[in-house]
């Protein structure tokens, strides 16, 4: 199988007040295209940091990260932005919709950034898929948390990403809404053949993925296939 993401000895250090804080310590793994992966671990273990590095939002202190065979840590911020726009989708715990744009416009932004034309229909179609076709003209402040997360899902899939990163996508939602969102994520994921990497505290959600990487104190302590993977 093709590898879409691979990390080799990635470390992340923070300097503060003269001290060096090692947040990630020599992490190496690779991810097959189209697979699903959960990163779990106690709070402060470095999950978000790791996700940020994989997605090219930040630079590692050492080691190398390849996304789609492009070495991220050698690119400039603008080039990484380019890579993100082309291959990466995001879902955040706190949704991160642009407050001044309507739901529909939020979904359109990644496509517009690519300079594509005739995107309105596609955006409406995506909103339709997440069940919000009639809320397109509403601003984020006029939507509930679950609705906002659905809009952000639609946005994440709008550029047909090869890999989707989600940082605790259900962390801010109630159980019932969470379930809907999770279902949507996995459905859309399967439909588009996207690779999914998510960070979560939710064991049930983690167990739905094919592989679980466990972090503790910045170190990878385990990396195991799940039952879900064996079922597949």
């Amino acid at each position, binding site marked *: 199988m093709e590898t879409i993401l691979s990390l080799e000895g990635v470390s992340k250090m923070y300097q503060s007040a003269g001290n060096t804080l090692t947040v990630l310590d020599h992490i190496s793994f690779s991810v097959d295209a189209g697979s699903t992966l959960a990163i779990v671990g106690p709070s402060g273990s470095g999950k978000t940091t790791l996700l*940020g590095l994989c997605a090219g939002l930040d630079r590692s202190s050492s080691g190398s990260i390849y996304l789609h*065979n492009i070495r991220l840590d050698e690119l400039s911020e603008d080039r990484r932005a*380019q890579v993100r*726009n*082309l291959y990466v989708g995001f879902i955040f715990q706190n949704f991160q919709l*642009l407050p001044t*744009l309507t739901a529909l416009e939020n979904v359109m932004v990644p496509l517009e*950034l690519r300079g594509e034309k005739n995107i309105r229909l596609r955006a409406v179609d995506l909103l339709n898929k997440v069940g919000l076709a009639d809320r397109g003209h509403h601003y984020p402040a006029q939507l509930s948390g679950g609705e906002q997360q659905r809009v952000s899902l639609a946005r994440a899939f709008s550029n047909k990403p090869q890999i989707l990163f989600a940082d605790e996508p259900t962390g801010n939602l109630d159980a019932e809404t969470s379930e809907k969102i999770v279902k949507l994520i996995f459905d859309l994921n399967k439909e588009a053949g996207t690779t999914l990497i998510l960070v979560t505290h939710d064991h049930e959600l983690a167990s739905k993925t094919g592989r679980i990487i466990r972090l503790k104190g910045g170190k990878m302590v385990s990396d195991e296939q799940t039952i879900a993977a064996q079922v597949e």
Partner: protein
Amino acid sequence: MEESFENNRTIENKGLQFPWLIKMAWRDSRRNRSRLFLFVSSVILGIAALVAIYSLSNNLRQEIDKQAASLIGADLEITSNKPVSPALKGLIDSLGDRRSEERRFASMVYFPKGGGTRLIQVRALQGEFPYYGDLETNPVVVARTFRNEQQALVDQTLMMQFNATVGDSIKVGNVTFRIAGILISAPGQTGFSASVAPVVYIPLKFLKQTGLEQKGSNIGYRFYYKYDRPINIRQLTAGIEPRLEKEGLNYDTVESQKEDTARSFSDVTRFLSLVGFIALLLGCIGVASAIHIYVREKINSIAVLRCLGAKASQSFLIYLIQIVGIGLVGSVIGAALGSVIQQFLPVVLKDFLPIKIANNISWTAIGTGVLLGLIISILFALLPLVSIRNVSPLNTLRLSLQSTNLFKDPIKWLVYLLIVLFIFIFSSFQLKNWKQSVSFTIGVIVAFLILAGIASLLMWLVRRFFPSSWSYLWRQGLANLYRPNNQTSILIVSIGLGTAFICILFFIQTILLNRVTLSAGGNQPNIVLFDIQTSQKQDLLELAQKQGLPLNQTVPIVNMRLEAVNNITASTLQKDSSIKIQRWIFGREYRVTFRDTLSSSEKITKGKWIGKAGNPSEPVYVSLEERFANRNQIEVGDSMIFNVQGTVMPVVVGSLRQVDWNRVQTNFLVLFPTGVLEDAPQFHVLMTRVSSAAVSARFQQAVVKQFPNVSIIDLSLVLSILDQILSKIGFVIRFMAGFSIITGLVVLIASVVISKYQRMQESVLLRTLGANRRQILAITALEYFFLGAFAAFTGILLALAAGWGLAHYTFDTTFTPQLLPILVVFILICLLTVIIGLMNSRVVLIKSPLEILRQEV
């Protein structure tokens, strides 16, 4: 795989996608437009002030060009203060195709009907002058016809004062003239010059009969020339100049008149421009601080955009486009407002100007204003905007407290440099003096640094000596000053600079107003008699004594001209522009007195006062007024050569003297010792005090009857006119300064209002946690009070320093700031900051926390 990325480069090469950026800017602004508008409110006022002033000066310049010919009334005018010598007579009579002649002098006139007398300026005219424009009279026709008969034109203020009507008579010297008409205005006259020295025109051919010709050197001779064929006046005047200059004659042409008028008018507009400039600078501060806070709020949106793949330059441009748009709108509104204000400026200024100005809309002024508004909006917004480029997409995952390091971003330095350059270029454009511009620019930079330093110091102090034992509200209010996302620096700098500018303007205003305030009253003399001949002195003193008036000594006055200072003459000055002597000191007539003691209003500051001249072989030591000497860099020991009506008189500067000009007294620039000028042609001045208008009228009538050549100035009349003038000047100063002060207040208000978004979220959280209304108000009030107090205090200190510097170096006077107004300003600024701060948190208190939390998503 690498390949597919390469393929996609084609997409990247689509560049910035400008149309999309504009679309995004437009979308993003939708929910912020009222706030964006607040950002430029200060620009609006600044541009308005500037456009108003530019329009005025453009209109003035145009009108001067248009009306210059009628200001002088002829192609060429030659003036002399003594009869033309036979040597020049030929030249004087040969110039021009048509010529007129006029003599001017001060004299008393007498209205037989009401018995009134007053000092006026007599103009005895012959010929068709003016050739351009007209003597404005009522009835119109008499402007031309009065010259043929024994008739006079009398200034309208004079007619009003003595209740005279056309057809009445007026006595000038020994001749009674019929009043042919009312003189409304003479060429080149301002409203003020008319009320200070009202004019009466008589035909020149009756001058001899009046018996006033004996006034000798106090008569001004004027010759007006008109050329019917086209002629190169410049060439002509260049040819005759040496001969005229040698005999002490001056000339004026339409061209030189234009320059003079424009120059004297530029003094008027300089203050106005400075005020406009300060208003604009305040606007700049407003822009910078508002955008700073705006950008800070936008960080999350920017991070999301970056996450989705927007380039740094793209996210930067989205907000830059917003600023350009709103800056343009603000500038256009400002320019429109300025054009409206401009309609009122001529009304305010009309008494100062020798010409009528139209209220034409000046498109150049509007264009300049809009362009400037745009430039400053962009330039000052750039400072906060460039940090957008450094917003990391990581902010979407975790709020990072990034303080973009100034030293690491060269672009930021470039923007700072551009701003400094802008301030310098623009101020030199306004002040027309690069030295002043350099000090101004440095002053602004220093003020900025001091305020920024004070802000850091404040934060450090509060953190270091945090009063942990104080109540929660105090601690929270204080802690707000240094906690992450604090607004201390930006508010202290903007409030501080705003306060400093407001105070400086206020100080300048006080300095200017103080300078023009005259003290009259008490037992000071209120009537001055001058042009008293030596032979009349005794009789006049007796007359005054008979009327029971208190007498001061008569003061002898000798007219003289200055020919050279340390061998520098008017012509060396013309060749060498590096000499620091003002040219006018050679052209003018000096009224000089001589005595052996100093008066009570004089004080020697340098050198020694010598009251009696020694024997003829020793040099004559004179005393100069201190500021006159300083301005022309004349020192004790320097030599000067005076020309006392034909006799050359070399002297040495023996001392410099301080003179209190505010006292009603005969004060002199040059003071001679006794023993030199006793035999020179001279006249005398007598001062006395009359107790009432009736006594004054009786005395004046008696003097005019017996001594027609003696002139009387009724100081109470002059003072009341001066008072009117001064209150008008005061009004103009206050009007313009008020404009800047209002801009400053708007900037303050805008900065504080905008800062509300910083604290909103937090107040809501506190409220959710159970803080009551009072507690939230108290925390907010405390934070804003600290900010306002520190900023205002520092600003006032800066203003005091600047005010002292200005008083000392620019206005050449002492600086005595009054404590009370400063205290009032301080309290007002503090109050204003706190009140607006509280109004900000009102939103938090009225609406439900949920509503606000949702809106802020």
